[in-house]
């Protein structure tokens, strides 16, 4: 896998994490299951990439973390969005949608583009 592709994936993971937290604070394990369930098991987030992504977002100030008790009474680290995180999410969603539309246009094309007009 080349780096360009990695970068793309990482960016995607970040926006998914931010989105997952929009409903309220969650710990890491809950974030993976939320993403998995919401995508009908299509997106499986690997633990090996999830946690570094969480810490990176925390380091950037997009997330804040706090220790609390999980539903099964274990000490767990809960993440929640900061104001900056919310802003970032809105921005990323826009970018992602524009990107998806553009890709869809190209992939859904039924004929080659018209030759460019010379100015």
């Amino acid at each position: 896998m080349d780096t360009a592709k990695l970068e793309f994936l990482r960016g995607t993971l970040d926006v998914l994490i931010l989105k997952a937290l929009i409903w309220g604070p969650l710990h890491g394990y809950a974030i993976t299951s939320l993403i998995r369930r919401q995508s009908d098991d299509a997106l499986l987030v690997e633990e090996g990439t999830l946690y570094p992504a969480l810490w990176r977002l925390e380091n950037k100030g997009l997330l804040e973390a706090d220790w609390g008790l999980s539903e099964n009474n274990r000490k767990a680290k809960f993440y929640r969005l900061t104001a900056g995180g919310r802003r970032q999410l809105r921005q990323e969603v826009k970018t992602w949608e524009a990107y998806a539309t553009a890709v869809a246009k190209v992939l859904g094309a039924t004929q080659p583009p018209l030759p460019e007009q010379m100015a």
Partner: protein
Amino acid sequence: MSPIPLWRRYDRLLGLDPSADVKDELRFHIESKVDELVGKGWSREDARKEAERQFGNILAVQHVGERIGEHMDRRRRFSDYWADTVRDFRFTLRTLRRDAGFTVIAILILTLAIGANISVFAVVNTLLLRPLPFPDAHQLVRLHRKDLKAGDFSTDAMQSFQQQTKSFQQVTGYFAFSGPDDVKLTGHGQPQPVTGMMVAGNFFPTLGITPVLGRDFTAEETLKNSRPVALLSYPFWKRQYAADASIVGKTIGLDGTQVTVVGVLPDTFDFGAVFAPGTRVDLFTPAILGDMEDWGNTMALVGRLKPGVTLGRAQAEAALIFPKLLMNNKHPENGGKYDATLDGLKDYVSGKLRQSLIVLWCAVGMILLIACVNLSNLLLARAAARAREFAMRTALGAGRTRIVRQLLTESLVLSLSGAVLGLAMAWAVVAWLAHQESIALPLLSSLRIDSASLAWTLLIAVAASLFFGLAPGLRLTSGNLQSVLADNGAGSGQSGRHDRVRSTLAVSEIALACVLLVGAGLLLRSFLHVLDVDLGFEPSRAAAISVSYDDTGGVAKRGVTLQQIIQRIEQIPGVETAGISDELPMSANRTWGIAPKGWDYKKQPFPDTFVYVVTPGYLHAIGMRIVAGRDFTWGDNDKNLGAVIINETVARGMWPGQDAVGKIANVNGSDARVIGVVGDVHETSAETAAGWQMYVSQIAPQPQFGPVGANLVIRTKLPPASLGSAVMTVLREINPQQPANEFKPIQMLVDHASSPRRFFVILVGAFASLGLLLAALGIYGVISYSVTQRTQEIGIRMALGATSSQVQLRIIAKTLRLALIGVFVGAIASFFLSRAIAALLFNTAPTDPVTFAAMVLILGLVALLAGFVPARRASRINPIQALRNN
């Protein structure tokens, strides 16, 4: 700065550990996964294996987590630190405001000390550290002869050297005898005196100066009979022509000649600042070298070295070339035999001041030291009063570093406030100094507070705050907590120790002040000696004015005109006597050769001899003494044999042990009879010994004896300034073209020559007084504090029968003991340190007993006074009240 979330304060208490957090978090994940799998029917063991398999390389993830965690922790610590700093700062402002008296005094002391330091640094930076304001200034070299102030070389010598040198890119020069106000500017009402300077054609290109307007001189304009042209200095262009750019290309009247202005020089170029401290030059004209061959040694030389050529190599080359050069290539018999000393232009300009400036720098540094010791003392006194506050905070868990940090914040705030105010003070001082044209210090006009000065300010402010803040801080936190909390503030061991430290500080202040005072005293005594020097003439009650007259009709007509001027001037009520000389002592001077008639120049040349072309009566008017023979008369105009008056040094040198009067000498290539011998005159300054001097008459028919101007000197019983307008009226009646030159007391020339010394004496004296004041404050503080501390003890003594005078005596004795120790240490230090300024002293031994005694006495008296005030207070203590309090 957002407030720190509450939890962060507690996680620190639990000992936040980023790597443990990472492990906990990952373990939770695995556990949750296991739970989920177990819920789906897996066995716990298999579920764990499966969960770990799914996770992959858990150690690598853990490693990433630790790295990010550490990074965040560092950042958190920094923001906590910053928040603490802000809190310390706010707290400091509150405490300082509460203790306004202390704050004002501390800031005042720091302002004076730091302000003085910045001002002196600005001077040192301008004169010593910063390069001269020319491109590649390090290549510029001044070529001069030993022991000569102005004119060094003839134009022929200059040109020959330029042709032969391989070390210099260019050699140039300026006419060294252009005195102030030597040119008349005509065309606008009254003729106006301006100062012109003749420079060689390549002068500005050599220095790397290009006109901001118009152009430089062309090669043709430096030739004989060429169209006269001039370049204006920037300030003159602004002042005289209101910065009108259209002046370039127009003509202006200079001494009756129409001169075309070809350009204006840049604002950054100040000729006087570099080459003639304390004078301003208004315009520059090209030196027509072809006309100047017979003028003798009139050029001051400056050269630009080729890149990579060292001063030593150039000096070696000059030593080979100069002895072979002739003064006048057409008249080899006039000799030459030059020697040349090369100095970097920068060294030449400020080298002589180096030592004075370093002394000044040290003095001002000492002031800062005294101020720091003083503040240390004040802070200690405050710390003693606040000991309980800090002990309480320590008891509540504040660490030692935390408290020292708080105290350092306080001292930093104090010293930075002092620095800001000091900067304002220095700015004012520097602005004032830069406009002191009467101080003959080079580069003074370019004095300013630049970025280097600002950096220096910051450096000394921070260093000072560390110096005076750290000691009390450490002192305060090293004490025994319990004893401080239990201390009722009087007579305990803790206060006793504070007392000793504070006494030591006060003693060192006195010692430092003593060193300063002795240094200032020695310099002051030297200055008084300089003022006392017998100059060989009488500057008081004499004044001079540059006279202009029509000198086109030959020597005979000149005689008539000058005689008429002098007679008319002498009729003015109050004028005792008057005379004219082309050059005045302690201004520019030029030299000719003199030797007994028939002397072989080539075998043994005599020193270059300063020459003054004077009228009868001049020697009397300026107050010189005729030792033998007579003055000139209006009848001394023998065409075949001239007349010359020599000074005692020349008489001793040429005819040792004989009567010089009546001997025939060869003066500048013409024979002359010695008609008189006069006392030596200090021609350069009171501090330099008199050289060889001679006088010839303004009306001598010998063409070799021409004057270079006319300065009328009058002697009067009245204050010279009161005669100015009467003299000007007479001069205008004789010559309507007489410009409105300044009527200068001769004393001004003498003061100008001694102005650098005066400048240093005033500054060092001011610093010494400041040091004395600070030391007095220091000793007052210590004694006054100890009186407050011992109120109870004194009360008991008085209750037991001690009289108030006994109490006073005890306190004054304590003061004197401190003062004596300080003076003793200071005197010993001065004894050794004063040798360092021996070279700056004049007729004063570095161990001058009178100075030492006087300074010891002054310090003793000041200390006594500082102790007397608290002593009086102590003697008025009411024993009953003192015992009841506390």
